């Protein structure tokens, strides 16, 4: 698919969005009763399910326990039906392992782990359908799940990918854009304080453009955080009316 025009002269992207517009985000919290916390999140055509167990005692070897804070254990996987061609290996490959590690780092920065010494929090994320921005969708879904589990966090962690084309930054890339030769950057943000939990980028980009790109990513993340906030508030409302 060489030569796709990622940004038209009139400022439209392939799917009709403008450069700064996000994909449509829809989410639900508390989808499973058995788990401590769970959430389902759609960002455009990328769909993810996040489940949280814990905090609970360390399972497996005790030696992993930390005396002053909780251990966060993340696992990322993709459903075999999530891509256009059936995936052979749903988890455990190199990419998934890396992604798990990134998730772990992100949430270690966000969750108040010091409240739960010698315990463990498990976050499992599964991509049901993949259409670009897998990492950010996972982070967003997992945030909701952690909130659903009632684990205290410093702030929402919101993530978004941004790309750089024709001297403009595109927010929230879809798969066609990601594979179309855009240098993309993923950023996880604690929006209220503006702290960055994680930045990841493995493409070439001129140093001069990095600041604008990060700026664009932070704006996009704040946009995501608004949507997540709405979802949480709505969920709370529903939950409280049920209890009454």
């Amino acid at each position: 698919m060489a030569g796709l025009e990622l940004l038209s002269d009139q400022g439209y992207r392939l799917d009709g969005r403008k450069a700064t517009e996000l994909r449509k985000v829809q989410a639900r919290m508390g989808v499973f009763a058995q788990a401590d916390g769970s959430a389902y999140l759609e960002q455009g055509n990328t769909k993810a399910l996040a489940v949280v167990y814990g905090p609970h005692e360390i399972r497996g070897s005790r030696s992993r326990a930390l005396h002053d804070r909780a251990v966060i254990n993340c696992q990322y996987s993709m459903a075999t039906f999530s891509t256009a061609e059936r995936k052979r290996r749903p988890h455990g490959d190199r990419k998934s392992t890396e992604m798990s590690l990134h998730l772990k780092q992100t949430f270690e920065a966000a969750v108040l782990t010091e409240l739960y010494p010698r315990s463990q929090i498990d976050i499992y994320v599964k991509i049901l359908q993949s259409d670009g921005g897998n990492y950010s969708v996972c982070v967003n879904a997992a945030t909701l799940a952690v909130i659903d589990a009632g684990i205290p966090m410093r702030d929402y962690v919101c993530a978004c990918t941004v790309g750089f084309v024709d001297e403009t930054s595109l927010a929230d890339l879809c798969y066609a854009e990601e594979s179309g030769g855009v240098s993309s950057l993923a950023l996880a943000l604690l929006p209220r304080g503006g702290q960055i939990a994680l930045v990841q980028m493995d493409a070439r980009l001129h140093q001069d453009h990095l600041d604008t790109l990060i700026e664009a990513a932070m704006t996009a993340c704040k946009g995501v955080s608004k949507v997540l906030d709405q979802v949480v508030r709505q969920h709370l409302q529903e939950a409280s009316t049920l209890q009454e």
Partner: protein
Amino acid sequence: MIKTEKTLHLRRFRGRKVRVVREHYLREQVPCFSSLCQADCANGIKVLPGDLTHYVVPDADVVVNYLEILELRELQGIIFTQTACQALHSKGRRYYNRLRNLVKDPRYHCVQFANEFQQYSYCPREKGESQEKWQTRCVYSAAVWYYNHLAGMMNVVMITEDEEAVAQYSSLHSGVYVISVQDYLQNFWPDLQAAQELYTSISQALEEKEAEDSQREFPEHLPAEVMEAGIKSGRYIQGTLSVNKHRALNEALVLTEGSCSQSMDLSSGVLVHGGKNRNRAVHGDVVVVELLPKSEWKGRVTALTEGQGDDRSADDGQENPMPTGRVVGVLQRNWRDYVVTFPSRDATQSQSRNCQRVLTIPWDRRIPKIRISTQQADTLQDHRVVVRLDSWESTSLYPNGHSVKVLGRAGELETEVQTILVENCIHVPAFSEAQMKEMPLSSPERPWRVDPAEAAKRRDLRDSHLVFSIDPVGCEDVDDTLSVRSLADGTLLELGVHIADVTHFVAEGSLTDLEARTRATTYYLADRRYDMLPAVLSADLCSLLGGVDRYAMSVLWELDAESLAVRRVWYGRTVIRSSYQLHYELAQALLNGEEVRVPELEQFCPEEKDLKLAQLIQALEMLTRVARHLRLQRDRGGALELEGVEVRAQLDKDKNITALVPRQPLEVHETVAECMIYANHWVARKIQESFPNRALLRRHPPPRQELFNQLVDTAKVMGFSIDTRTNKALADSLDRAADPQDPMVNRLLRMMATRAMSQALYFSTGSQPQDQFYHYGLALDRYTHFTSPIRRYADIVVHRLLTAALELEQGAEPAGILATNRELEELAQHINNKNWTAQRAQSASTGLFQCLFFRDRDPQTDLRCLADAIVYSIRDNGVLVFVSEYGIKGPVYLKNKEGQVVSAEPDGSCKWQSGKVRRYPSYITTTSGGCTSTFRLMSHITVRISVHSSNCHSDALVLEVVSNQPHRGSEPQRPASQGHRQLVQEVVRLAESAQQQAAHAPKLSREERDFLQSKTPNLYSILEEIRELALMDPEAVPRLTDPVKTGQ
């Protein structure tokens, strides 16, 4: 944050069928770009006017097939739908880019409408609906949307080639008409003959394509994915096909880009031998080749060949095989407009069975014959016609094309000049009314005046500085002036260069600016000139004439009076009044202390006159001193003396210039040139520092050492050694390599050195590492063009950059948005290309005039056809010579096709006899009947010049050896300049009288043929131009490997 409805979009990829789901966001607010809009759309600057009778919405296949018609400027109010644009995109990137430029260009009244993102005009594709049907439906729904959106105030016409659609939709909605292209053109544009002709010619070509017989002549091209994969794996090689001009049928080279990762050395390119292997690729295409096994490799032919097409397989030089391959696919067609000649009647008769199809012969020998379907074959006999290629199927021996425009009968001066323009892709229409409206008014009765408000913003140098210009005699467009004065009791010197402030009059993005950007440079042909800017600017408002106030961009240096070190530099906009408009001879005479009359001083009384004269002379002397110092500085850095002798050699090729430049260069020339180089250099520094990655500079990469081989070898034969390691070493060794008996030797050596040079080019600083900025020829680390904004677009860009840099310095945000690195790099590429085409056109027109000059002379009797020539290269069956009198370079054959050789009698006269030719490194001998004659390198011989005329191609000069002695009959050193001026004059006069004799001949406008109107602005610019000509010999690149000069 707008969240819009989302619908699903099903697509299938090529190759492996994969179902892909894509999101598709729709919105209500999509700009309509119409001035009638009632809904406050976010329309930009470019909108469709409201006073048209209708808007036209072309269907997708109309855009794909008939884009050329829609490109006519007369058609207005065209709405290109996104659907149609995407259809064009899938046809090819190039077409799509053409459309994009069309939409961007404010001179065309057309817009693009994103109909697929508009909530109400989008229609999803239904199950089982064919792509074409869906596209038509989308376009129709867009047309309806427009009609409704503009509240019925504008009728909308949809044009389509689909008859079913016409029937289905035409009565569906009042106010939205659906008709076919033909009906549309006939009903709405009955006067636009060009569009209708174009339509018939394209539709015929399309029909032909469908009715093609299926016998296969060429193997099919590989699919794109296979080629891409092959290139990545190293199995195939990608490159640009370049056909050998002299053996167009057989030899073509594929020049690879960048280095090949393979072990083989492919730097000299891959040979593609024969038409079958070339597989429908045309000169200039980007192709993919596969290497043949080593056993099938072939060498290139190094012998001189006469004419083309004589397929002498005998000398298929097997001795020196090089990588040979065959074309497996074409990545990108780089087809342009071609000029072809229709064959005359007897030639067409052979195809009388199908008289609609005519095989026409392109003017450019590298292009294969083109098959054209036309009903005008009879009327177009022997005419030159512009055609475009449509396709080349594997079932056809020749490509299909359609005619676009008739230029005229072959052989006529006007036709030939137009041919040169078209072949070099030069398009110079007269300036339109809208463009002229942007120009300020100035007439002899009410001359333009400086605006006091504007003058207050500028630094006023009118009274404080003695400003003067030095130009050739009679120059009208003065774009640079100089000033020099001493400051602070003589401890400081202030040197000033003041350049016409063109950007003040030409706003960025204005129509004039766009036109200038498209032209990029003023085109100088042998007998005419096409200006970059309208005459009101170039000859009046921007011309820094004496005695009137003008706006200028100035650079002022404060120099230490003793050491001449720079203390301070000031850049800025100024108002100046030039006090003296000197010319070179006058300035030099003043410097030499001769008694001369300065016209500006005539009115003063004697005492005042003396005082003023003394001031002027003092200024000139100061200037000369500074310039000497600057020159010395650059010489130490290794600046190449490529002007001097070299300039004149190149000068001879260009008559305009020759007519102006005196044979002995004066020191004052160099003084002015040096000041300009200095100004360019400092401006380059300034903009590069202000905009480290978006400044337009000019660099001259060092030459590749292997290109010097010919020079070094030739010099060795002559007993000189040439050191080419650095520019300084080269300059020094060239200075040493002079033969006191024959000044031509040094001149020719310098010519060869020039050919080895790479081309100087413009670039954007963001696209090159800083160590690549170096200007080899001038020995400067940064260089740009600043001093001739009237005739070069690059200078205009640099002026804007400098203005922006100054604004930035004052803390203000630059007014206009600066071009980004990428845009600037594209622009630089464009300007480079235009410069090269301008040079090619210039030399082609020079060649044309040479041929016209000799065409009407009998070579046997006319003495002027005999000339002295010097041998500068030895080939297998002949020598290459340079005729200095006419500036002609060409081959002289010592062996003809019958195997006869030239043998010299004792008195030097030569005859054809049967014999043998032997080639040695420094000489070539012919042996016939026991007597041997030798032609040495750098020896003088006498040649006869005649014209080999050709109906379809350009005429060519043929040189024949008459005697191996120097030409004696020539009057001693007739000034070449005059010779050339006469040549042009005479040819034009002849052409004119021929025109008058032919009563029905169209009357040509006087201005167009006013051949001596080309007044080059000043000598510095001439020198610059020459330097460029010298650095960029258009034939230099193929010459590296192509031993044959001309053989047409």
